[in-house]
């Protein structure tokens, strides 16, 4: 038998042995993962749309999905979803670019205050850095300011107390302020604000910029939370549109390639940072596009299932199955409303004692 480096490589290093005669759902491109998430680790998530799937699955699993802005108990599940509570670990909406993440961290610690920090929409007020977080924006500037302060405090707490930060890199394209480089998640004018070429400029990050943004962010995170570990993923969701003058498929491949390269460089050069290949699981040719929906963008549930099964197999001490959901953490039992109802009922009944009821005296 010939002696060369490939001869001693494990099966997963061989394309043929990784895919031949292996059912699609059993393909496992993770191979090995250098980190173990325990059920008691506080796992926080942020990033692009695909991160929402990870967040949803973690929440439903027996793991500790760490949320510092869960929404007040008075709010129904429906209201919480409408107002962006619990979608991610804090109420920041989608964070598509590493520049956004780096700036969010700096804003939390007072190191960056964007000049363009509020948009008006008729009588309402929008947060340029999470413009769709509420259905119609904020009802007053005072509410907007109070909520933002509360939000940034919640994000600070998330950074300082998390054990694992799962970040899904989504895009390299984006619009920023010419004045101070503030990165908007959505181009001004789309969900709010007004696009002004004098004030806004399109940027398309290169791999080195992504690496730098993430490195600066990780250094900052470690300063406030030395035990923090980071898991990076790349969103497999193609660009909805490109601002480059070229085909959207070319821009998608460029963007995802940059993010994939950057993720590897970051993982290779930082301790306690790992790359999890959800991108490969969803986009790999082995599944012949089966994990994309009819629009070729949305990720099918089966794809998310495949990703999470491998996540639980390789990144946790479970055998590929999520542990049964833990019972919901006990909320402080609140009796204020029941007490108020009871106290009010007493006085209301007393008030009406002297009034002739409709239809005559009571039984």
């Amino acid at each position, binding site marked *: 038998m010939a002696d060369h480096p490939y001869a001693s490589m494990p099966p997963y290093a061989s394309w043929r042995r990784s895919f031949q005669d292996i059912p699609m759902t059993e393909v496992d491109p993770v191979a090995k993962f250098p980190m173990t998430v325990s059920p008691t680790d506080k796992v926080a998530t942020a990033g692009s749309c695909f991160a929402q799937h990870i967040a949803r699955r973690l929440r439903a699993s027996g793991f500790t999905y760490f949320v510092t802005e869960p929404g007040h108990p008075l709010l129904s599940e429906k209201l919480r979803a409408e107002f962006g509570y619990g979608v991610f670990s804090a109420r920041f909406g989608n964070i598509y670019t590493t520049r956004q993440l780096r700036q969010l961290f700096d804003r939390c610690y007072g190191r960056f205050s964007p000049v363009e920090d509020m948009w008006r929409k008729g009588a309402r007020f929008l947060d340029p850095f999470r413009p769709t977080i509420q259905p119609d924006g904020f*009802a007053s500037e005072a*509410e907007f300011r109070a909520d933002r302060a509360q939000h940034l405090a919640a994000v600070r707490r998330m950074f300082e107390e998390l054990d694992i930060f799962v970040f899904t890199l989504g895009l390299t394209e984006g619009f920023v302020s010419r004045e101070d480089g503030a990165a908007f998640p959505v181009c001004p004018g789309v969900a709010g604000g007004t696009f002004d070429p004098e004030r806004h400029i399109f940027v398309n990050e290169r791999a080195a910029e992504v690496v730098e943004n993430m490195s600066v962010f990780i250094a900052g995170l470690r300063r406030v939370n030395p035990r923090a570990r980071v898991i990076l993923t790349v969103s497999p969701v193609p660009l909805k549109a490109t601002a480059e003058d070229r085909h959207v498929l070319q821009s998608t491949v460029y963007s995802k390639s940059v993010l994939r390269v950057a993720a590897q460089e970051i993982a290779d050069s930082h301790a306690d940072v790992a790359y999890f290949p959800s991108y490969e699981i969803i986009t790999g040719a082995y599944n012949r596009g089966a994990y994309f929906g009819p629009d070729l963008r949305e990720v099918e549930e089966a794809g998310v299932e495949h990703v999470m099964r491998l996540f639980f197999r390789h990144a946790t001490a479970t055998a590929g199955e999520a542990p049964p959901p833990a019972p919901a953490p006990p909320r402080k039992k*609140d009796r204020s*409303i029941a007490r108020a109802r009871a*106290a009010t009922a007493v006085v209301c009944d007393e008030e009406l004692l002297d009034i002739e009821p409709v*239809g005559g005296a009571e039984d």
Partner: protein
Amino acid sequence: MTTMFCVGNSHLAAVAKGASIADIPVLALAMRHKLAKHKEGELGEAFWAKISEEVATRKPTRIFAFIGGGTPAMLGLLRHSEPFDFVLPDAPTLPLSEGSTVLPYDAVRAIASAHMRRHFRRLNRLAALGVPVVQCETPPPVPDNGFLARHVAQTHPEVDVASISPPAMRYKIWRLHSQLFEQFCKSRQIGYARNPPEVADADGFLKQEYWGDIVHGNARYGAAVLRQLKELA
């Protein structure tokens, strides 16, 4: 003198008690009794049949409604275990309670609206009787947390002054409640009568001479309301 045809829940009582002070005759029809018993928050058909009969017999020119009013107390009288507050858009400088979670105004509004839905249904039913209806605002909140705590402690001894929500927060919920009623009435061509200006202090709270219990005005308050409504009757 025209008799004021009044229908409603417990806030109706202040008006009934104030009739003699204001020297204005009142017919007060309370939404209680076996005919008015709730079935999933609705009043029975027998109740509405009786109200229709009264309207047909007495032929009022207006019906004054004192429907609802429990929402502000329910949501805001006692401090929640996770205290919350919100910014009222038309009074954004009112203070936020220290240590409370700020909820979106729209979310609080949605919660209050959901709570008031059955009151809106009742107003609709009343308006369908064919006589102009005027819904009357509930009294503003009492500013004195000590007074409220003593009152509630009579039935809930564990409640003390620290259990009562800050006055500004209670005021905001009351005002939101009034705004929701007023907007609903406007959308249905139902009249809406705000409180007589003299019952509120400079900060909008109920003046002490009009306090009844934790949520209701007294007979003097009822008389002030009646004197104002008389102009509309």
